[in-house]
């Protein structure tokens, strides 16, 4: 598809067309391979660095070993079944158990070797088992832990970010046609409000709507106990969604509209837009065909990057609203030194990012005829 799009209209001989097509194909192939290779190397190094940091370069091992030693000694000493054994026998059993546990977790190998194994597992998406954490259903598999929290995170990030993205896009588009108007000035004056992060607005919203007015809940996903009725259940989730969602939207709204507006303004002062206006096209036609079209690549890039950030969740906003999402899970995993969960959540983000960035190159070529894949510069 991409390949065909970059072929310029050639009225010449069939032969010429074929050779051009071949060279285009080769160019795209070469470019794609190089891109994939660099991206892969980037992901590998990024994930390996995360593994090193998440293990504190091996120091977490020491913490783990001490932890195993403590818990094993405790359980053996407190177990009535072993009470009658001599101290020596007990020590031997403790020692044995500790060694087994260390071997089971693979802590007997040096960290350098294990870190490579972690890397291999991470890259093949073999996320493994969590050390301490478990999902609400009791599963120790990292995949289950992450999957269980994914819907809540996607609900929050998805709702808020999509409203934010499309809302600000369309408001900006309509503002770009009448700059200097009252609402335009409001947006400019309000853009410094975006220097405040969403959890901070959340704090104020909790104060106003939950503490003082008592109309919305302080936080959480559903009422406690959860309603039996399906409809009530979803309504309850919706009610809990309002505050976190609003705080995310409010914190970025003004700046987002401002940026898009400025961006559209640059394009709407182009000569061909004036020309279209002079031709007497309706403003919606001008917007759609002459402003949106050339800005589409940027819009798509922003949208794609936004979609992958949905995955990470909002660590702090989720913490403030006690929203049981991936952000909170990641935060708790760090608190538990639960490296597999930390690495698992990073690797998925890294893969999504790499794939998206790679795809964007081709999407550009699809939506913008001026862009040639791999040519380095536009025509």
């Amino acid at each position: 598809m991409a390949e065909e799009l970059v072929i310029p209209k050639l009225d010449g001989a069939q032969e010429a067309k074929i050779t051009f097509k071949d060279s285009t194909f080769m160019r795209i192939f070469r470019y794609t391979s190089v891109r994939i290779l660099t991206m892969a190397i980037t992901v590998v190094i990024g994930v390996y660095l995360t593994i090193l940091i998440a293990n504190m370069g091996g120091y977490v091992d020491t913490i783990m070993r001490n932890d195993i030693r403590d818990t094993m000694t405790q359980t053996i000493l407190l177990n009535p079944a072993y009470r009658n054994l001599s101290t020596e026998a007990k020590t031997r059993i403790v020692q044995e158990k500790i060694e087994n546990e260390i071997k089971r977790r693979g802590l007997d190998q040096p960290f350098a070797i294990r870190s490579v194994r972690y890397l291999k597992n991470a890259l093949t998406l073999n996320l493994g088992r969590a050390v301490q954490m478990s999902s609400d259903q009791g599963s120790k598999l990292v995949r289950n832990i992450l999957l269980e929290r994914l819907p809540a995170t996607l609900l929050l990030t998805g709702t808020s970010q999509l409203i934010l993205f499309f809302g600000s896009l369309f408001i900006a588009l309509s503002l770009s046609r009448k700059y200097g108007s009252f609402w335009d000035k409001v947006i400019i004056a309000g853009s410094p409000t975006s220097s405040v992060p969403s959890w901070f607005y959340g704090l104020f919203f909790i104060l106003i709507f939950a503490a003082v007015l008592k109309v919305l809940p302080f936080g959480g996903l559903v009422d406690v106990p959860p309603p039996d009725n399906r409809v009530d259940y979803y309504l309850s989730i919706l009610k809990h969604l309002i505050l976190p969602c609003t705080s995310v939207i409010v914190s970025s709204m003004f700046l987002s509209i401002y940026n898009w507006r400025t961006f559209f303004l640059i394009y709407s002062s182009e000569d061909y837009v004036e020309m279209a206006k002079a031709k007497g096209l309706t403003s919606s036609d001008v917007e759609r065909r002459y402003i949106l079209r050339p800005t589409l690549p940027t819009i798509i890039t922003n949208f794609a990057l936004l979609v992958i950030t949905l995955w990470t969740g909002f660590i702090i906003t989720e913490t403030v609203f006690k929203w049981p999402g991936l952000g909170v899970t990641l935060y708790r995993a760090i608190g538990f030194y639960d490296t597999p969960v930390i690495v698992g959540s990073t690797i998925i983000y890294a893969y999504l990012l790499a794939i998206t960035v790679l795809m964007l190159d081709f999407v550009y070529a699809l939506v913008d005829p001026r862009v040639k894949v791999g040519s380095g510069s536009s025509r």
Partner: protein
Amino acid sequence: MNQLKIAFKNLKQYPSAMVGLGIILFLVLVSVYALVTIPYSEAVYLWRGGEDVWYQYPKYAAPSWFNFFSEKKQPISFFVNTADGSMEKVVTHNTEDISTIEANYSFDYQADGLPQEITIYIRPEVGPKFPFMSISWITPDGREIRIADMVVQNKTSYRFSQDEKLQAKLKSEKVMQVLFSDPELETPTVLKGTYQLKMIATTFTNGDEMDMEFVLFGTLSGAAGTDKYRRDLLLPLLYGTPIALAFGILAALGTSLLTLIIAAFGTWYGGWIDELIQRITEINLVLPFLAILIMVGTFYSRSLWLMLGVTILLSIFSGAIKTYRAIFLQSKESSYIEAARAYGAPSSRIIFSYLVPRMVPLLIPALVSSVPTYVFLEASLAVLGLGDPILPTWGKVINDAFTDGALYQGRYYWVLEPAILLMITGFGFAMLGFALDRLFNPRLRDI
């Protein structure tokens, strides 16, 4: 100098810039005041000192100015001490060994509510025979209530409400209510007027010393209120200012300057250096920024200055490098650079004297606008429980309040005070940054 004047004159056209500048100036003044009046070690001591430092303050007291806004006046906390002369002490020597120490304190009580508690701290320095002390209470209508008679053996804290003998004598467990109410009325109402506390001690050894401290724990205290550990919140609010500014400005400065210089180096030398910088930027994009900060905080140390270093390190190779690179690639080809090359200027001179200064108009607005990000980053880390363990910061106060459920309990001042300061700081820098952006980048000026 002249250029600066012109820039300032231009800036004056933007009211938001002036408001922003005003806020920043105010914050700087507060910082200077805080740093001058409270040295670093003193601030840490007052913040971390423990009960010995905070005992004179009530728990969970709202700020004193609450009284201005409410019909019902609440009692304001205060403490007086014979040691520093805020309460007078009269010593009479009866015989060679026996002497009496008398301390009276009268105060006007105009509040509608009851105080949390009254405590008398007695610090004797006495010989082998322990002194005897009696405390009594005189109400505005002239009743005298004997509170306690006791032998003072060593440092004593006498809490009115917790004395069971006093409760029995007053036939009520609510000691404060009996002491401060009008006995004539059916419903307990606070009797307003001048109350007097009388303390008389008799010592039995020559040279005995004794100091008394009288603390009335009200429900309001100081200009900022107190938290659950009795700490005066004025300290973190004052001292948090220089910390927030230092963290925000240092992080913004470090990040943007280093990013700029690295981008300049990459573009100037090109080749593998440029390639390497590009790759590092992409790797950095994959790394989870906040998660790494949390890991550093959990695993290594929560020191604010370490966090600052890690923040700068992780933010250097950001998307801004690509923006700067694109512009540097253009200016690298300009004729004045060519001229510099022709007369044989060394690379370092070209980078630092010709390339980097050209970016200053772009750098300054970006720098100022990014300060709030870092100020809030400190607060964010604190809210996650990763605030600096020893420094009094705004974020720490919010975190303390949040973990203690201040919003559920209705103690809004505890959250609002640091939150509003943070917000003002954020707005101040953002407003100035936006105005500077429009000033330095004329393309946006008329848009």
